[in-house]
């Protein structure tokens, strides 16, 4: 039985140039239909006992921008969720929030509904970078926003993006320092990627956006690891840093290979080794659910070995890497039996280390993690 659930809230004020998530911009009018459809999709969660509810350790509302919904709409959303789910003792409930949406009223409503973790889309403390990223807040808003959130919810994570066109290492270090100075409980540091179909993709092709050179990106990634560490953070995943005990339990479930449910357009779940993905268009998803059809459009049942290899890819993101016993238990494969030659090769290149506990990326391996993971797939 899954103990984690994700809900995708696909509304934004504006689609940022780099974003390829499933969402609609400027279509808040669809929120009502969305909430009705979501309620219907949630019907597939069969409770363990009639009238009972499924117990969750983690619940995550992501987007899009969940805080795009207004107060009553948020209430409806939580109501729909908690008619099927109840929270276990000490459960983690996260909501992604856009800084400019934060108001005392909103925070109060979230906290009252049981939200105990907020992930703020701060992205940068460099005004120029924020403009490039097409975000609607200013760096100077953030201290006040944080204070508002903390009045009710103390577990706050900040999302930061580096390697923004025009940004240099200095600017990124300044962003990291500004973020750390606000003493959040968690930081997520993302290198900007250019996805096919986004405005950034074509602007880069036209030469309007120029990505920083590889060496500079490398230095930024190094800073993203070193600065938080110096401030007492623990890097528990390639781009995640937490104060002790503040790791995001929901995301960890993904990287550990745990089952999870997922709702809303574009969301993908993993139940008993089968991954099913919802229709990726907001309207497509709506229509399917409204017509009483399944919202799933893809089903992936990997062969045991492929599943094991995929788990290697996920586990390696974690600082503890692939843990021998856990891996064998989950997949039925001994890690060395599956990957010995490749492991030795990556080890000789200095990208992984092995010991009794398992296999981990080295610091050098983190810089080139994609290549290392590809070698194991």
């Amino acid at each position, binding site marked *: 039985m899954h103990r984690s659930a994700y809900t995708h809230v696909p509304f934004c004020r504006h689609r940022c140039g780099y974003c390829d998530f499933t969402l609609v911009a400027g279509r808040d009018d669809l929120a009502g239909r969305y909430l009705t459809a979501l309620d219907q999709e949630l019907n597939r969660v069969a409770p363990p006992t009639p009238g009972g509810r499924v117990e969750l350790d983690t619940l995550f509302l992501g987007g899009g921008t969940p805080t795009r919904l207004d107060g009553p709409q948020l209430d409806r959303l939580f109501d729909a969720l908690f008619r099927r789910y109840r929270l276990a003792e000490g459960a983690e409930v996260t909501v992604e929030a856009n800084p400019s949406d934060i108001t005392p009223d909103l925070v109060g409503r979230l906290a009252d509904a049981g939200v105990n973790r907020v992930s703020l889309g701060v992205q940068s403390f460099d005004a120029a970078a924020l403009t490039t990223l097409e975000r609607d807040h200013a760096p100077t808003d953030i201290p006040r926003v944080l204070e508002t959130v903390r009045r009710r919810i103390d577990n706050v994570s900040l999302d930061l993006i580096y390697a923004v066109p025009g940004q240099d290492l200095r600017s990124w270090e300044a962003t990291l320092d500004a973020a750390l100075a606000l003493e959040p409980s968690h930081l997520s540091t993302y290198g900007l990627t250019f996805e096919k179909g986004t405005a950034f993709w074509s602007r880069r092709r036209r030469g309007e956006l120029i990505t920083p050179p590889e060496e500079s990106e490398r230095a930024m990634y190094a800073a993203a690891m070193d600065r938080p560490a110096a401030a007492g953070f623990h890097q528990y995943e390639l781009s995640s840093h937490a104060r002790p005990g503040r790791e995001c339990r929901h995301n960890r479930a993904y990287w550990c290979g745990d089952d999870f449910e*997922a709702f809303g357009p*574009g*969301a*993908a779940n993993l139940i008993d080794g089968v*991954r099913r*993905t919802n229709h990726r268009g907001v309207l497509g998803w709506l229509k399917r659910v409204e017509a009483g059809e399944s919202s799933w459009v893809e089903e992936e049942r990997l062969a045991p070995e492929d599943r094991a290899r995929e788990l290697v890819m996920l586990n390696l993101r974690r600082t503890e890497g692939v843990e021998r016993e856990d891996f064998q238990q989950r997949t039925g494969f001994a890690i060395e039996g599956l990957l010995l030659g490749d492991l030795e090769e990556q080890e000789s290149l200095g990208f992984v280390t092995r010991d009794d506990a398992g296999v981990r990326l080295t610091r050098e391996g983190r810089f080139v993690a994609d*290549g290392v993971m590809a070698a194991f797939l």
Partner: protein
Amino acid sequence: MDPRFIRNFSIVAHIDHGKSTLADQLLLKTGAITEREFKEQLLDDLDVEKERGITVKARTVALRYKHTDGETYELNLIDTPGHVDFHYEVSRSLAACEGALLLVDAFQGVQAQTVANAYAAIEQDLEIIPVVNKIDLPVTRIDDVLEEVETVLGLDPYGAVRVSAKKGLNIEDCLAAIVERIPAPQGAPDAPLRALVFDSKYDSYKGVFTYVRLKEGTVKKGDTIRFMRGGSDHDVIEIGQFAPLRKECKSLGPGQVGYILTGIKELDQVTIGDTVTHAGRPAAEALPGYQKPKQMVFCGMYPIDGRDFEKLRDEMQKLALNDSSFSYAPETSDALGFGFRCGFLGMLHMEIVQQRLESEQDVDLIQTAPNVTYEIEERSGDVYKIDNPQDVPDAGVIEEFREPIARVNFILSKDHIGPIMQLCADRRGEYKNTEYLGPDRAQLTYELPLAEIVYDMYDKLKSVTSGYGTMDYEVIGFKAADLVKMDIMVKGERVDALATIVHKSNADNRGRQLCKRLKKEISKHQFEIPIQAAIGGRIIARETISAFRKNVTAKCYGGDISRKRKLLQKQKEGKKRMRSFGSVEIPQKAFLSVLSTDED
């Protein structure tokens, strides 16, 4: 059929002067095809031919033509390719004929292959009918062209026929000239059978089609025939002609052209140039046959998937049956495994064989850079030829390293003589002669190392002369030169398939270029890859492909997992058209980059 009413002729010309288009018209005017069946360059039926708009293989068609004298004639037409690489097809076709239509473009006039093909026809003592084609063009130089025909080729311009193959103008004149001027074939119908095998083709249902031109005797269905050189006997299960579709007939007599089907499935039993006779009443002597074509360039062809080796062998055998100028022999490479050393008449021929193997036969290939044949004389006095740079012995044992030399004729306008002379000088050419074809055009003759012309001279010529210059070449012998083998090391390991033979004076330059090219073609890896060019043990050039310094995608949450996995898997699969050496993936393109002489 009485040989008096048979005419056998080839259509020859410089590339694109309209041979296939004229063949269309001859088919149409004699009723071999109807207006409705008509399509342009109907005889060019290979995919590569349609795609490139050129003829690659000679094609034979039997036409029935009712002449003004009231008699019906059988005209056996052979449409030939014009590109220099396929000159061998032309000579072979001419050997089956008594005459030739020599087409000359009414604007372009006599070009390099016009000269080469006219001489080939003259050598075989054929009746040549000059045909000025494309008279419909808005700008023509018909009088100049006729003068060139006279002065350059020594042919009588007064008998020239003027046509437009495209518009179908004066095709009747052409047909009349064929009947009236080309001699009828000789040969007694009751003599012992002698038929020249000039082509063959494999058909998976019917077996091997043997294409023959009868010199003497008669062949019928049910006869038992013998291949005189091959030595095997077979029963004839079908005979016929192409008109242009396959059409069965009762018998073939002297002078006729057609096919014989015996149900042979073994590809090695039919050889082009062999003579077919009757098993019961064999001819005393085989026909002269053909000179084996000389392959000009060689390259390695390896299946990308090593398991396809046997399949590739079968496919090469089938292709060789239909293209006797292509040769192949098994070879192995440390780098590429089991494959074949293949010989070709030129670069276009090489490209076409590769394309036919890949598209018609569905095998993915890795191809190494082509090279010419070299001759080595060792200190011990041993002399031998090599067609693979890997076979160059230690420099210490070589007495003389010789390369093939070609005589090259360029035909171009006077303004372009200077730049071409410069190009030839850069490529170690030796000037021979200039001959003026008229007030503005000249034929320039050089002797150049074959290796300096065969890969890209044609392209260079086209760019220097804005497309107007043409060239033709012929290998005349071997000559000693200061040649060395250049090895390429990738990450410290010699990649045998990247070795080349270069002239010493140019070695450093080529080494640098090649390392730069390879740096461009080989993508970044998880580690640094040094690329070195070396002669003997001496490194002459070096480049380094740096390792990935940062290659990590930050996000990977629930919805991204399978996408991410697929993306990484795809990156892995992108390497399909590559071979790995040690741990370095080298793409197909890199092997050919050895060829490039561009500066960048």
